[in-house]
């Protein structure tokens, strides 16, 4: 187990360096960022002065090595737009994104598994057809469009859900303000419903199809037939025998799910004015705020690696055939 963890951590270091190199190169290739930080009427001297002050006049390898050296000390430099440490800006936005992503992940599991199970147990029926139609819709509808439609219907027509905004839960927790966090919780969830569902709808659909096909495969296996022959109730057969084996592929998917959902939250965060990392990175890319982009990418890569590590360990725990 420990050998596995150490090996994965070493691999992660290489991945992080690769991620930073690619991000750095891509952003530099899109032009001189100095122009974004001087006035329209800046003279050539003023532009040069700013370029030197921001370090953009140095050779790219030197800029990159300087960045790596500082990265090792947790210093990503100051955000060029926000004029404060880039890591602070990222860490401030991360909790909101984690709230949204975890909520969407929970929805993607809690809603998808029953749907998949119901569809598999009613294979070929109208129920199965309905679930699969919804699943197909979920995989076809873009999240930003779904978000806008939900705003129009639930926010504007019915006025039962907030159109946009965010009430923090994780941030007060981190700050040790537990009373505030749990006081906020009902509102946090209330504000999460629409953006969470907009992010999760695709995953719910995919997971439901995955659970259905996996269940169909497991339900036809000998050990399920044996369980039924022993007179165990159908409920127990489905939950304890079939589902336990059928949801292994879903667990694998959860690890990858995070990366996918993070990609999906960018647009949803903009539509719902959610002050998260996706929106921060989107703005930073537009403004070519290199330190913020790099800090965000590295932090997200670390979160992604950590989650996958946890998923691998959970996988080994629930499937005795897997050895780490």
């Amino acid at each position, binding site marked *: 187990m420990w050998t596995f963890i150490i090996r994965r951590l070493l691999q992660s270091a290489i991945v992080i360096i690769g991620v930073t190199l690619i991000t750095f190169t891509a952003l530099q290739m899109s032009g001189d960022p100095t*122009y*974004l930080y001087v*006035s329209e009427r800046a003279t050539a001297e003023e532009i040069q002065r700013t370029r030197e002050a921001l370090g953009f006049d140095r050779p790219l390898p030197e800029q990159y090595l300087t960045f790596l050296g500082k990265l090792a000390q947790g210093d990503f430099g100051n955000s060029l737009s926000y*004029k*404060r440490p880039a890591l602070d800006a990222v860490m*401030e*936005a991360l909790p909101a994104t984690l709230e949204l992503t975890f909520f969407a992940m929970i929805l993607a599991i809690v809603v998808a598994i029953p749907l998949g199970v119901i569809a598999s147990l009613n294979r070929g029926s109208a129920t199965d057809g309905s679930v699969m139609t919804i699943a197909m819709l979920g995989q076809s509808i873009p999240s930003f469009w779904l978000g806008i439609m939900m705003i129009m219907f639930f926010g504007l027509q019915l006025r039962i859900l*907030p159109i946009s905004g965010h009430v923090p839960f994780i941030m007060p927790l981190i700050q040790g303000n537990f009373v505030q966090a749990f006081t906020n919780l*009902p509102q946090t969830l209330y504000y999460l419903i629409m953006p969470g569902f907009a992010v999760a709808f695709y995953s719910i659909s995919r997971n439901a199809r995955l659970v259905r096909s996996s269940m169909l495969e497991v339900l036809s296996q000998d050990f399920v037939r044996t369980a039924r022959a022993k007179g165990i109730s159908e409920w127990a057969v489905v939950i304890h025998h079939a589902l336990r084996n059928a949801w292994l592929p879903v667990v694998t998917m959860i690890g990858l799910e995070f990366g996918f959902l993070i990609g999906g939250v960018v647009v949803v965060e903009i539509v719902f*004015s959610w002050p998260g990392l996706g929106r921060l990175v989107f703005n930073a890319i537009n403004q070519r705020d290199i330190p913020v982009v790099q800090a965000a990418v590295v932090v997200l890569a670390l979160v992604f690696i950590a989650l996958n590590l946890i998923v691998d360990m959970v996988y080994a725990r629930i499937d005795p055939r897997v050895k780490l």
Partner: protein
Amino acid sequence: MKTLQSILLAGAAAFALPAAAHAAPPANTIVVGLSADASTFDPAQISSRDNSNIAKHIFATLFTVDFEGNVAPNLVSNTDVSDDGLAYTFTIKDGLTCDDGEALTAEDVAYSFNRPADKALGFTGNTPGFVYTTLGFKSAEVVDEKNVKVNLTAKTTLALGMMAQVYIHCKDSYEKMTVEEAATNPIGSGSYRLASWDRGSQIVLEKVKDPGTFDTIIWRIIPEASTRTAELIAGNVDIITNVAPDQVPAIDASGSATVAKVNGTRRMQVGFNLGKGVEGMPGAKEIQDPKVRFAMQYAVDVPSICTQLLGTECTRMTSLVNPPNGNPDLVPIPYDPDMAEKLLDEAGYPRNADGVRFSIRLQGPRGRYLNDANVVQAIGQYLSDVGIQTDVELLEWASVYSPLLRTKEMGPLFFLGQGGVTWNPLYDMSLFSTPDGATNYQSWTDPRWFDDWKLAIDANTVEEARPIINRMLKLFYDEGPWLQLYFQPDFYGVSNRIDWQPRRDEEIELFAATLK
């Protein structure tokens, strides 16, 4: 049954509490929906329009520019200008205070001018950059407790208007703060103070003194235009900016809000790149001829572009100067494709056998200006219709378009909007202050313009320079480097519960806003 009732009651209670958070704003609060968050509240670092719109409620300025474009004293009771026009001595009004409770003195004003210029602090905001470059700021010094002297490097009629953009802040508090602390702890001299800033969500200001009708101003950050519209219609915000033209009917029909349209000061044009950046490219030689440039003005149906693509009628441009400061003798060039063809023939560019006179590239940004991509494509079609085969190229603003603009390699034709003002024609004309100036993206070098420019800026007043200004604007009209389009209209969504007028210069001023 009882269990079911309990569950329903609990559910209702859980939703009732958050639902209360979505009531309309209270009577003493006004809520504005902006597309972008502030990046800093350090007065020396502020650079974006949204950021400065908020900051103007926290920091007072020596002068203000009113709705009509007049520069009026704000914190000063008297202004004295030296004979050579290089020193301005201001007397500060009595009884002014800082948000930290101390009296606002000449020392604070001098500090407010000198701090942004401190090279050691490396500020890159609008004040140390554009404002001080245009102003020719040299230094500020305390004369006595009530009087402060601002020294300039050159005489300019723009001085007071530019000084109206310098935020007055409080020396003692700022000297105790690091630059990082100053970014989030503004200590100003204005009507409001920063109460809270939830980054990416909202900024709350609380009133500390007059002027100001509302006790609280909330600036909500809502990047998506359709979400801003939904929040306005739902009654959760009172004012929204940058309403898309296609959403205007929905707002007007909502019964809860209307759209206020204003002809802005942003000058929309097709620039003719006459410089080396496009030398040798198709069309670059042809547009060197002023007759060709003038002919092209007749080829584009600007009123139709406005009504069809921007959803409103526009104020047409006759020069680079915003009304009412332009040359009153000039009238907008009408859409007359026959005249365009005639003038192009006369200029020596007849249609070839294939109907093409010459080819040229028109570049434009996507998503930078109101419906820009469609406007650029329409212009390209109008030019092609008179035999100028126009290849339209749409580019991403931040990473491609803006850098090309800076290096003057756009075009040969390029679509651009440049902000202007209502308070001084020379400000608008200063885009062409030198042949190689940073904002002379067209590399226009006509010596008649630049000779007159020296005379115009040497005048003591705008009135004194008026004959020269009118001569320059006539030259710009006949032979200038712009295909003149329109002043970009701005659309604001305004809740029916408030009375508020938008300004032409994109500033959002809430001091005079009231409940209906």
